[in-house]
């Protein structure tokens, strides 16, 4: 009876497996890290949409696996993917170094490995990423300019111990160190999450009231910082300058007060003329990596490093999209109606000149452009 249960369990697992693989398609795997945040989910949606686009549908058989935050498991997964006869593996690497051996193994077996957003240091891997140093430095320089080189600031970092966080934070601190008038009064680790940013900022504000803070540099959390200032009764005109992330909520807040044609604004998810700069690690990088992988499989030359331009917008560069098609974004809009994107933590930097296959619907629900 016991074995019966087990067998039933195995059979159940078996039933969940889906469609058989067509032989003439490229077998491509996506190994994601964590699906627990908006960025990862958006990136995954865009990869799915890319694979589902009319130009790709007949060429690509895409399977998605998630490793969670555990690099060991990602190593196992990549091994298993190679065993399954993958043609290419698209990977969000949990660690830039821990995967090196297994990736080298995969390369030796003729499997293409494309990393997106974060990088793999093994030379045979293809990387698609932004310059993290620039992503830390440019917003910091903007903040110093805003404050006229003088003031007390709060720094909210990402996940300590990761190379992305270390690079961005070090670059920003280099900038601050050059201006003796800038004093970092508190530092919290925000884990790249609006929810954690709120907990950290609440702790900080308990001992450093808003009146003693002149500006903020955050890897993610400017939206939350504005919301908290709202709750503390600080008027829109007095909100502290914040150098931060590319979330849709943050960019809506950056629009001037009274912007015409806003639909679905609520609470602090509204235009407030918030003095800010918005940078982003764009979530289309996975989709672009997939496109490049297919191109490489078809015999085109792809460079080992695809360096993405850093999306960076100040208040007067933020423009509202009403539909969110790729064509509309190409014309220069970069933030979406709250009515279209109900989640303010959702990331708005989804436009790339190189991916006309995917627009807003791709990022939201994984549906490609026509």
């Amino acid at each position, binding site marked *: 009876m016991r074995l019966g249960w087990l067998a039933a369990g195995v059979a159940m*697992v078996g039933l969940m*497996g889906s469609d058989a693989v067509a032989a003439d398609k490229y077998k491509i795997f996506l190994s994601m890290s964590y699906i627990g945040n908006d960025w990862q989910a*958006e990136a995954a949606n865009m990869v799915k949409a890319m694979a589902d686009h009319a130009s790709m549908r007949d060429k690509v058989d895409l399977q998605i696996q998630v490793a*969670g935050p555990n690099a060991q498991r990602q190593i*196992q997964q990549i*091994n298993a993917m190679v065993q399954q006869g993958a043609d290419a593996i698209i990977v969000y690497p949990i660690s830039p170094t821990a995967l090196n*051996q297994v990736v080298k193994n995969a390369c030796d077996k003729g499997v293409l490995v494309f990393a997106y957003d974060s990088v793999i240091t093994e030379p045979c891997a293809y990387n698609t990423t932004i310059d993290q140093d620039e992503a830390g430095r440019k917003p910091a320089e903007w903040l110093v300019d805003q404050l006229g080189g003088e003031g007390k600031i709060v720094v909210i970092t990402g996940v300590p111990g990761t190379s992305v966080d270390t690079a961005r934070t070090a670059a920003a601190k280099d900038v601050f160190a050059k201006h003796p008038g800038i004093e970092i009064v508190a*530092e919290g680790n925000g884990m790249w999450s609006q929810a954690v940013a709120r907990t950290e900022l609440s702790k900080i*504000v308990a001992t450093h009231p808003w009146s003693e803070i002149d500006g903020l540099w955050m890897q993610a959390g400017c939206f939350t910082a504005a919301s908290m200032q709202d709750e503390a009764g600080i008027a829109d005109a007095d909100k502290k300058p914040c150098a931060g992330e590319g979330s849709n909520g943050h960019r809506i807040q950056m629009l001037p007060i009274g912007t015409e044609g806003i639909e679905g604004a609520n609470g602090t998810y509204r235009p407030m003329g918030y003095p800010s700069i918005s940078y982003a690690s764009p979530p289309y990088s996975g989709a672009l990596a997939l496109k490049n992988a297919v191109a490489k499989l078809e015999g085109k030359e792809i460079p080992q490093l695809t360096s993405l331009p850093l999306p960076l917008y100040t208040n007067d560069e933020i423009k509202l999209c009403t539909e969110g098609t790729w064509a509309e974004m190409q014309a220069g809009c970069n933030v979406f109606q709250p009515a279209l994107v109900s989640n303010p933590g959702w990331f708005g930097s989804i436009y790339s000149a190189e991916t006309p296959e995917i627009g807003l619907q791709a990022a939201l629900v994984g549906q490609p452009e026509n």
Partner: protein
Amino acid sequence: MSAAALPLAGRRPRRGMRLGRHRGLLVALVVFALLFAVADAITPGSFSYFELSFMSSGGATLALAGMGQTVVVLTGGFDLSAGAVVSLVNVVLATWMGPEPPSQILFGLVAIGIGATVGAVNGFFVAVVRLQPIVVTLSTMFIVQGITLLIMDKPGGLIAPEFSAFLAGDAIPDRLPAPVVVIAAAVAFWLLLKNTRFGVALYAIGSDPEAARAAGLPTRAIQLGAYVVAGMFYGAAGAFISAQTGSADPLIGGPMLLQIFTAVVLGGTLLGGGRGGCLGTVVGAYTLVLVVNILLVLNVSAYYSSVAEGAILIMAVLAASLNRRSAIADYLRLGWLELRARHDGTAPSAHAGEARPFALQRPEVALAPVSWLERHRELLRYVLPAYAGFVLVLVATHLVYGNALTNPAYFNSLIVLASFLVVLALGQGAVILTGGLDLSLPWMIGLCGILVAGLVRGSDEAALWAIPLGLALGAGLGALNGAGIVLLGLPPIVMTLAMNGILQGAALVYSNGTPDGFASPGMRWFMTGRLLGVTPVVWFVAAFVGAALVLLGRTAFGRRVYAVGNGALVARLSGVGVGGTLIGVYALSGLCAALVGILLASFSGQASLGMGDGYLLPSIAVVVVGGTLITGGRGHYLGMLGGVLLLTALATLLAGTTLPFAVRDIIYGLVVLAAVLALRERHA
């Protein structure tokens, strides 16, 4: 050895008994063989050397670390520092190991030495100072994590290729992968160790520490030794992962912790000690590797992978424990007896009105009045240290910032931030008082928060029915935890760990990976607005603390919780419905977690996946720092509240500084350790 035991010594146990003792291992082997057959059948091509080498290296780190954990678990302990030690060894090797062979040999030994050192620290505090293993290892985990980040703040470094080839390459090219040799050596070491007096003593202590001591075993030295041996295994795991990855990542070990426990349990080792062994753990670790492969081949949606792993865990443990004497059989038999008694009219309830054959009489002895202090001495001794720590942290905060003690806004923020743990402490605390542990909190919080935010979508009217629904769901899922523990006889850690995975899958499927609900204005006001000068949730926390004190201290339910924790059998014989109480306790924990999910969603304005992840270890820490025994039966909600205040105030103090995060981890770990040191039993 006494003369009476002698005649037994020569007799061989019956074969059934011998097999029964290895049942856990046998089931683990069967599960592994079954999954292996499935994996082999659905994988194109036959099992090649290439696959053997991939598989053996893929599971080796987990197997080695799991073996260490097994040694500790066998003595009835628990080691949370395993993953942290793996990371520490990894960064040490990548930073200081040279390219020459002597240096590589030296650092191979250093790896094991580092593990042994951390293990000795753990063992010292557990065995000699007699602190609870879970808190000691929680503190060392934070401290070791901090040291790791101090050595290396980002992934990098290089491991000499010869070192990699020796441990993770081929022992005999195309015949034997090196990881197989490594694991075989580790298993051989364990088998030798198991047959020494030390090895036998490990099992003796885990089965019954009192009996072991009475039999003249040096229990303290053996416990200390167990942690040292465990540390050596973690060190070996760290060395292996360094070889396998060729570099270092300071975060590599931490996320392995849950997998390590899963491997131990899958391998048939009993949590609580006395039965199992490292061989089973190795099988368990490789079973987990197989699961990853099978899920990949079947193309199971990523959302279901944690569900499948949870289900396999439950089924394997059930298969190892089901027999005529297991809990479910007991309940069926008791239920049948009860039915028959009702039918025959012999049930006690049928004789409610009759006079009892004996009557209790109050002894008429005049007792001298005892002072309040005298009566509550025991309670004060384990409740006060947390508050003393809290006051110290407050004073430190005031000295650093100059505005804490006199600043009402500081206390307001403190209570708002503490509110989540205040609520969780009741649920987790009640569970721990019964001797259990609820590991399903992270995704109970996540799922309920996401569900409520998704139903509310900014509407106060919807919140009126969605919040009760979310709370009911939490209580119901919690009761399901309890039912699994009571009816199926599953260990609480296994049941709640599996539930956590299942709930994670449910949350992902419900939200399709991107939760897009948001809190209503009323919910946001509750966590961030103003009512009579403070944030509304502050009033709620005051009411909640009152209700929790009454529930645990003044109700029949509360007394039953303590009774079960002090001894389930005695409680049952005294007429306490043990099963019902346990189900109630887990339902309470689920309810509290759901409430925290809703509070968190209200606080941030939106719910996110993984928002409960950061609350599991703190929920255990505050309960234990507040003077509660992890084995159950002793503790007070006031103490837990003190623990919450202490740890929240400490986190607030550290957040306002610019200290490196590594140093903050170390301070946090030291404070937790100091708090429980103050709780130490003076004459045990």
